[in-house]
């Protein structure tokens, strides 16, 4: 009777050892399996390198399902503000084959290269894209921002 329990305990001990080894292997494995998501940087060069664009929510936080204002800041490569730009906005969800639920517009120039983009609304979590066509005295260029919620 006693010997059966001894064997059982030994078995449990071996199982625990195995779990421990597996845990060490799992925890120390390199994290390369994670798929790389879209580039979500909020500041980037425009497609042809004409401007440096930054895109950020005006009040700092993104709220799902609410109309929000964002700021698009446009600078030249040398860091000078881009003034008097005409901005057209489009976008959507690349994985859901639909566009934006609203038509955001550049409604105000706030100085120092900052343009207020009103009417931005994200109705679901996931990968969104906002595409800006920018036309200024320096020329025309485009920039694409990814927003992942």
């Amino acid at each position, binding site marked *: 009777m006693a010997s059966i*329990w001894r064997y059982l305990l030994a078995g449990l001990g071996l199982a625990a050892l195995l779990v421990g080894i597996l845990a060490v292997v799992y925890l120390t494995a390199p994290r390369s399996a994670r798929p790389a998501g879209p580039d979500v940087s909020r500041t980037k060069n425009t497609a042809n390198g004409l401007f440096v664009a930054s895109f950020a929510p005006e009040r700092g936080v993104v709220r799902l399902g609410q*109309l929000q204002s964002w700021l698009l800041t446009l600078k030249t490569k040398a860091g000078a503000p881009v003034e008097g730009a005409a901005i057209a906005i489009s976008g959507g969800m690349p994985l859901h084959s*639909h566009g934006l*639920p*609203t*038509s955001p517009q550049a409604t105000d120039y706030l100085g120092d290269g900052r343009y207020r983009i009103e009417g931005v609304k994200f*109705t*679901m979590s*996931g990968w969104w894209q906002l595409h800006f066509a920018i036309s200024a005295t320096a020329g025309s260029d485009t920039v694409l921002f990814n927003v992942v919620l």
Partner: protein
Amino acid sequence: MRRRSRFLALMVAVVLTGCTKPDFSDAEKTTIASLALSSLPALKPDTTDRFADVPAAAALGSTLFFDQGMSGDGSISCSTCHKIDRQFQDDLPQAVGVGRTSRRTMPLAGVARDPWFFWDGRRDSLWAQALTPLENPLEQAGNRTAYAHYIKARFGERYERIFGPLPDLSGMPSNASPLGNDAEKAAWNAMSGAQRSAIDGVFANIGKAIAAFERSIEPAPTRFDRFALDLVTGAEPKGHAVFSKQEILGLKLFIGKANCVTCHNGPRFTDNSFHNTGVPPIAGLPPDRGRIDAVRQVEADPFNCFGAYRDGDASACGELRFMVKDAPELVRAYKTPSLRGAATRSPYMHAGQFSSLDEVVAHYAKAAPSVEGTSEVHPLGLSDRERAALVAFLKTLSE
């Protein structure tokens, strides 16, 4: 020896109960918490309607909502289709007022939180919505001067205590409206501009009273909400709040593989937006292209947010101002309905196309293409067991 065997039995028990406990990742728990009614924010004031939170307006609105006198032939009220004991809907595939409409009656729980009204969003405020069936010949089939005369005769004092003096209606036609029959249109066109705007003002106030009442209709907590609250707070679900294995699988599918939560998100299970999901048309009903045709209607509505009858300033009009007006995905796009209470209010979709939740889930699993425009849904590859689990989960939103 006995102590050791007792210890082993205890270990086995711990391992076994650990296996049956619902196992959700942190991301899943975050999503589940976002769906719980406890995450529903307080109802915001409606600055376009200064009577929205005036109790006397809500009381008058409730009287009007149930009053069959608020119709052309005295037989139909808002409550004819929005039945108070049926989640404010009527269980019919298409609503029947004075005539038969081509759309399903929508339930009203939480309606004041919608940015757009009707299945296609052809109105942009709760008070502007309430006016539309009043003059639709298939619904309440009345006209706006008749409503103004009726309000003065039946509820004149109550109206004036809330909204101020009624205009002088003497000399105004008994029946006139820009949307009525030829005689009513002619009578409307014969009125002076001042008379027409005075009548429109009374008409808008009728909508504001009904809207004030409707703001009180809110969703109630369900079994899902109790389960979600326990899951998030780490409490042990008890009694009614315990989910079966099938319900847990359904919930996991809902927020995972089946992609339901993509559109049915937030505590009301809706993104308040419009989507073409390939729901088939019904033979014999007039052509129905959904959101794409509603855009012009809401723009042309004199009671919209840009119109003269809005209270407050135009900063409340963002949805209308930044509305998508022309995009291919608006074709046959319809509003995402809330799923709260859905299990006990068949039939489903904008014209009652499906008679059971099984049919709805089968539709999304199969993802048939749309007759016009492009459906946003893709085939899901769900097994029979998974489809049944989704239906089981949906039922927890009605219990």
